[in-house]
């Protein structure tokens, strides 16, 4: 026998068993999801909100626990008596609170267990998801510790069983060896201070639980920590009805350490392992619990291992941004991580809210309900962003509901009211929107011109939002470009243009007092013009600097405008920078790269906000240099645009490059 092959054989078997378990689990969840969808609809299916429901139940437990704590007395005699008062004398509120406290705790374990199982069978615990998985395992421990500790407080026969079983279980550890049980060995061994300790633990552990829960959800972009209100309300109603139908009571009277526990109505959600302590040995239960915990903690790194790749890039329309997508990452998570406002709801392939179009590339479509994405839709290039994972670089499009600030995205028709060539390759387009419905937008946002064949081209609003009678676009001619060539060769005044907007999360932040540095490259001046004119209109007093970089003088196609602003506004300064001035320009101003001019003027950028609009090359060169000069990541906003041949050479669209805008 070749013993060297054993590990490989074992791993292959392990992989086979694991895949079988996961396949079976997915089959079960899909059947249950489908069944629940028929009853609840896709938006209110509780199985899609297991984690959020567990979160909600914790709040219920905390709220009811606070009420119970008001009446709870910490003492050998008082503990039992105070809980009995709540249960019997004040059954109509205190009793209900006690019951809901208990049942919500149990339901929380149930929801957490299902939540964990769901992520396990859908293989959502490996790679970058290890953090949420491992913190989830810690949460399980904290939940159990909190719950078991809670059973000690009423000091009834159940409490007696729990404290003795806990002590006997821990005494199996070499460090204790029978010392803990001495605290509960006989009547008189327990005193009032025990309840001070237990109460302290029963407050401290849930606080730790909340803290870890917060950490647990940090790595999940836009984690849903609240279930939809109908689900939250229904869960509460169910628990209250249960509390009234089967109120929780103390078991067997007050604890009596001289009498053994014979039978007990065990809470199997929390105390199943405690029954095992006496069927097996305490040591064996430690091996089971410790082994299971270790297995859970190591699960993300156990075979089968994925082939590690660097990940992919995804061009997202209509934002026209290129963002990174990690291998195995769901496209929705990648988009939300980058603050792209993709609509979503259940995140489990049930509601179809996150449906988008795959324009380029290959994906693993993942598991979803057929009602959420039909076969025909999939053949037509649709996919569910919450389920699909990338197999190559991608180009996708989604239907935005609204952009930052709640500005609704709509399709408009406009007529070309005026055209003016600003320089040899930049055309000013003045558009009159049909019905005079100029969209409400934020200074810095852009629109997509919709071409007859379905393609889109992005242009920033060059007008400020308060200018309600027209829209100005500044179109730079791209040799070979479909739309820009048409603008320069075929378009005439009176033509109709369809566009969608407003789009983009690059806009002027007015909630800061820091001086602003605008960095514009070529037609990157257009959104800057919108922002500066808006700033003047609203009376922004912050110091503003505009560094406009171009190759030669003729590329500064509207330099008189910022020069005029400089004359009229004390808080505005304009610095044109040419990188390749021609002799006939007779240029005596700043030369070089535009960001280098800024660095020469500002040794420390930590007290400034920077808005960079231009080519990706400009932004990519400027960003690290700005960072090295103290610029805060939170104070840098970029609107880089570039041709995207790598993603989709045919469309040669204008896109914004990755990162938070």
């Amino acid at each position, binding site marked *: 026998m070749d013993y060297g092959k054993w590990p490989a054989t074992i791993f292959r078997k392990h992989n086979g068993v694991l895949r079988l378990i996961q396949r079976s689990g997915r089959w079960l969840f899909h059947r249950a999801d489908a069944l629940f969808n028929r009853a609840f609809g896709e938006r209110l299916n509780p199985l899609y909100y297991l984690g959020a429901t567990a979160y909600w139940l914790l709040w219920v437990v905390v709220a009811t626990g606070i009420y119970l704590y008001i009446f709870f007395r910490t003492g050998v005699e008082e503990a039992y008596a105070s809980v009995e008062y709540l249960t019997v004398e004040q059954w109509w509120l205190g009793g209900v609170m006690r019951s809901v406290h208990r049942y919500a705790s149990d339901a929380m374990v149930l929801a957490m267990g299902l939540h964990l199982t769901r992520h396990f069978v859908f293989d959502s615990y490996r790679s970058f998801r290890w953090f949420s998985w491992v913190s989830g395992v810690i949460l399980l421990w904290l939940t159990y510790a909190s719950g078991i500790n809670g059973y000690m407080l009423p000091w009834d026969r159940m409490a007696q069983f729990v404290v003795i079983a806990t002590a*006997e279980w821990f005494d199996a550890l070499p460090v204790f060896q029978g010392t803990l049980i001495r605290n509960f060995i006989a009547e008189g061994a327990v005193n009032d201070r025990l309840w001070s300790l237990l109460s302290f633990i029963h407050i401290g552990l849930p606080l730790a639980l909340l803290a870890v829960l917060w950490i647990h959800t940090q790595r999940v972009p836009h984690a849903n920590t609240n279930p939809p209100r109908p689900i939250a309300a229904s869960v509460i109603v169910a628990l209250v009805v249960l509390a009234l139908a089967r109120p929780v009571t103390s078991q067997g009277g007050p604890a009596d350490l001289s009498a053994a526990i014979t039978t007990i109505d065990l809470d199997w959600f929390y105390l199943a392992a405690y029954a095992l302590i006496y069927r097996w040995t305490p040591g064996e239960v430690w091996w089971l619990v410790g082994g299971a915990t270790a297995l859970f903690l190591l699960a993300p790194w156990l075979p089968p291992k994925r082939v590690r790749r660097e990940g992919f890039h995804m061009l997202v329309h209509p934002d026209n941004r290129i963002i990174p997508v990690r291998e195995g990452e769901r496209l929705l998570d990648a988009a939300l991580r980058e603050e792209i406002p993709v609509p979503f709801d259940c995140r489990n392939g049930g509601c179809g809210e996150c449906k988008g179009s795959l324009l380029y590339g290959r994906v693993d479509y993942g598991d979803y309900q057929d009602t959420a994405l039909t076969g025909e839709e999939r053949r037509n290039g649709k996919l569910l962003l919450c389920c699909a994972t990338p197999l190559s670089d991608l180009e996708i499009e989604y239907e935005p509901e609204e952009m930052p600030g709640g500005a609704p995205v709509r399709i408009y028709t406009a007529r070309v009211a005026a055209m003016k060539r600003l320089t040899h390759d930049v055309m000013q387009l003045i558009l009159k929107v049909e019905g005079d419905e100029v969209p409400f937008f934020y200074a810095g946002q852009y629109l997509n011109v919709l071409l007859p064949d379905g393609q889109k081209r992005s242009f920033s609003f060059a007008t400020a939002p308060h200018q309600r009678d027209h829209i100005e676009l500044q179109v730079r001619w791209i040799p070979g470009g479909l739309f820009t060539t048409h603008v320069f060769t075929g378009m005439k005044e009176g033509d109709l243009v369809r566009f969608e907007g407003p789009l983009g999360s690059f806009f002027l932040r007015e909630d800061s007092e820091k001086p602003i540095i605008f960095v514009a490259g070529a037609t990157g001046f257009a959104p800057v013009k919108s922002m500066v004119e808006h700033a003047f209109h609203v009376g922004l007093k912050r110091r503003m600097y505009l560094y406009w970089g171009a190759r030669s003088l003729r590329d500064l196609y509207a330099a008189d405008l910022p020069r005029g602003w400089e004359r009229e506004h004390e808080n505005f300064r304009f610095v044109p920078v040419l990188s390749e001035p021609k002799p006939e320009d007779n240029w005596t101003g700043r030369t070089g790269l535009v960001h280098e001019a800024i660095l020469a003027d500002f040794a420390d950028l930590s007290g400034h906000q920077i808005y960079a609009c231009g080519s990706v090359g400009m932004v990519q060169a400027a960003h690290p240099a700005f960072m090295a000069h103290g610029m805060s990541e939170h104070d840098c906003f970029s609107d880089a645009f570039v041709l995207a041949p790598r993603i989709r050479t045919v469309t040669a669209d204008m896109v914004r490059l990755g990162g938070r805008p």
Partner: protein
Amino acid sequence: MNTIARYAIQGVLYAAFAAFVGYFSSAPTYRHIEPDEALLRLSFSHAGERKQPCRTRTPEELAKLPPNMRAPLDCPRERADVTVELELDGKLIHRVVAPPTGLARDGASTVYRRVVVAAGRHQVRVRLSDNPQGVFNYTAERSVDLGAGRVLLIDFNAAAGGFVFRM
């Protein structure tokens, strides 16, 4: 599916959820020990004798020590194991050798054993050795009538004369 039917099914599913939680929150009943059984617990924490007796230091030895450490007696810290044997109705059911705790093995030895026994009268004999020689210097024997579900605790308190039986 019409609206009323959907709400009805939702109600049924939430009721099933509540029933599941309500049932397993306190059922099935766990039988810890049988109704005709009782519990015998042996538990104590007791420090054995020192392995070596204290010795009086000679004046020369004292003179070599720093002034603040000139204790007249030199007492090695290590203690003897505590050995305890528990016999029930003439049968040895536990023999425990409990080492002293602590890095210097100078702490108390702790023993805990839990025995489920049939309810009724039992002859209990227990003996303990806490000396380096292993001589059982404490012995106790009782005939106890253990009612169903009762607990007999066998503790040890050297100051009180040895084993303490509590029911």
